[in-house]
């Protein structure tokens, strides 16, 4: 789960990481209040969306930049009026962009140098990894690609945790001296504590800056949390912004279905994540485009199958549906009854191909055959994919 920059910075502050003074706003009244809290000097106006590349982004009405440094309250208000409720397109949003529903106003500071600092869970070593660089403010993936020697990587054992020497090691590698070593150690200690206590998968400060006055400060922040651990953190759960999620995905999560919307027109409904991915792959290999990933899980019941059909059909792009079930513990006849009930409940107006295999497959096929539901049965996954791709292409 991801959160907004202003939420991440509030968390950072709780862990004593210095950030510029700032205020969030979601409507014009809040915008005025936020701006009035800041001095009539340099002000940074930042669009809050869950995607990077905001500064270089363009709004759909042509207004350029989702992050603006402006002089004075008047100019800040003008920038805010352009951004709020406008749609921002960045390298990470896709061409449809994201509607900006929250703005964040902060004090500007005199930047001396920009650094990069992050802690991520490294799956290869099963440890936390501190990643730092003197090349902050830019795309860190590019730094990793072009000048890997400029990246400092320090693994942290999950049982031993962050020690002071880790902090010193990274601080010296970044070239800090004197008081800045101490400042950096405090920041890294707070950052690690937050990462660990809140079950984060990633905490990233880019850039971490030194000001002309010699202070270290986090100018931007990105945090993503382990979805499996969210139940332990109701305070983090509250930070979820449903505006940033596909409504179909929100609906699916209510029914415990793993659904991800994609760009194609052939919907699929599958049991098991691996088989669901493989079903998307085979649709593609026959020249079709999958409209979604959907795993109904190992114990899907009639209600879930019905909900799944409704979600699939709420996508106007869908021109055909492929159901692929390998009945294991979940028996094919149970699934077949679910499909029949769902088909009676939901008006399925596009071609439907069903492939059942596994436990009680004959009973399942019989139920489908005798139900009168308009569908094409298939015996193998390859055959099912071929049929649905053909039906969608040729009508």
């Amino acid at each position, binding site marked *: 789960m991801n959160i907004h920059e202003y939420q991440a910075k509030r968390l950072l502050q709780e862990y004593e990481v210095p950030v510029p003074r700032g205020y969030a706003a979601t409507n014009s009244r809040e915008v005025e209040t936020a701006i009035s809290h800041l001095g009539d000097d340099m002000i940074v106006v930042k669009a809050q969306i869950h995607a990077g590349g905001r500064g270089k982004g363009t709004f759909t009405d042509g207004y350029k930049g989702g992050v603006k440094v402006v002089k004075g309250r008047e100019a800040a208000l003008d920038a805010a009026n352009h951004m709020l409720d406008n749609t921002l397109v960045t390298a990470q949003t896709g061409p449809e962009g994201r509607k900006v529903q929250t703005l964040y106003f902060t004090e500007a500071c005199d930047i001396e140098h920009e650094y990069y600092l992050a802690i991520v869970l490294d799956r290869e070593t*099963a440890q936390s990894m501190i990643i730092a660089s003197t090349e902050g403010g830019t795309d860190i993936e590019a730094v990793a690609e072009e000048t890997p020697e400029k990246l400092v990587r320090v693994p942290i054992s999950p049982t031993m945790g962050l020690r002071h020497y880790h902090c010193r090691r990274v601080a010296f590698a970044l070239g800090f001296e004197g008081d800045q070593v101490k400042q950096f150690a405090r920041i890294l200690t707070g950052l690690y504590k937050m990462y660990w206590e809140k079950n984060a998968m990633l905490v990233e400060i880019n850039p971490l800056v030194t000001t002309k006055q010699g202070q270290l400060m986090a100018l931007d922040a990105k945090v993503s949390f382990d979805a499996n651990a969210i139940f332990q953190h109701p305070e983090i759960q509250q930070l979820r912004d449903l505006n940033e999620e596909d409504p179909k995905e929100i609906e699916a999560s209510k029914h415990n279905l793993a659904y991800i919307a994609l760009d194609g027109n052939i919907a699929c409904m599958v049991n098991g994540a691996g088989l669901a991915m493989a079903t998307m792959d085979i649709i593609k290999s026959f020249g079709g485009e999958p409209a979604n990933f959907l795993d109904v899980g190992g114990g899907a019941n009639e209600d879930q199958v019905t909900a799944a059909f409704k979600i699939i059909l709420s996508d106007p792009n869908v021109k055909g549906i492929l159901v692929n079930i390998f009945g294991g513990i979940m028996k094919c006849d149970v699934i077949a009854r679910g499909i029949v009930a769902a088909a009676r409940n939901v008006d399925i107006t596009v071609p439907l191909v069903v492939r059942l295999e596994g436990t009680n497959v004959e009973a399942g096929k019989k139920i489908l055959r005798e139900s009168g539901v308009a569908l094409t049965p298939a015996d193998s996954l390859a055959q099912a994919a071929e049929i649905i791709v053909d039906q969608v292409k040729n009508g």
Partner: protein
Amino acid sequence: MSILVNKDTRLVVQGITGKTGTFHTQQCVEYGTNVVAGVTPGKGGQMWEDKVPVCNTVEEAVQQHGANASVIYVPPAFAADSILEAIEADIPLVICITEGVPVRDMAEVRRRLYFHNTKTRLIGPNCPGIITPGECKIGIMPGYIHKPGRVGVVSRSGTLTYEAVWQLSQRGHGQSTCIGIGGDPINGTSQLDAVRMLNEDPETDAIIMIGEIGGSAEEDACAYIKAHVKKPVAGFIAGASAPKGRTMGHAGAIVSASGAGTAEAKFAAMEDAGVSIARNPSEIADALLRIYKG
């Protein structure tokens, strides 16, 4: 003709009195697995279904009933605790079926497994389990699709494994042992660990490895296969059509925003290691049978 589990396996079920634990234990007992004990703290002394004694701790199950393998069906919040309890009871094989274990918990478990002279091999979490057909089934896979034989199967996915096993069985090829290593980013047994065990098993003649996007477990296994494996190996990777930066159902199945962990990179590693590739999930058994006559 197997690795890790066989007819001598004496299983303890952690979470035996829960709904999931009860259902799947019934299936395993029916298959012929020797379930010697269950663990549900607070219910020690009871009998499960009039058949299996329930203990308060894993240690009791080991000392009083000689358990030498454990399967875990406890909820995600308590799964890591259950794994650690089994490790400290020196159980040689622990299989965690539970889905949704916090990854930070697994980082701690893995540290415990690797750096404390642990006697335990962990399989999972978030996996279907392990089966040596005809002898011992531990987990949630449907037993009847398997048949005894000489092909070893290792996979990160449940139903996709059933798909491959079913293809093999229908073509007359049985399996030595099938291991589901699970779909999480941090797990106990890697593709490489499983491939190495199957390679060293004299009763396994050929290997199928089924992977997914995300991480580098398949690349690591392929490097080993290239250097050490003479047995025929076939492979498939799920997720070639998955978008970047999205977690595809399994917590570990994600191509990072920077483009690491793609299906293409994994297929390329397989190609380089001489693995016979199924480009399509309905051809997994056929990919093996191109290079293995059985």
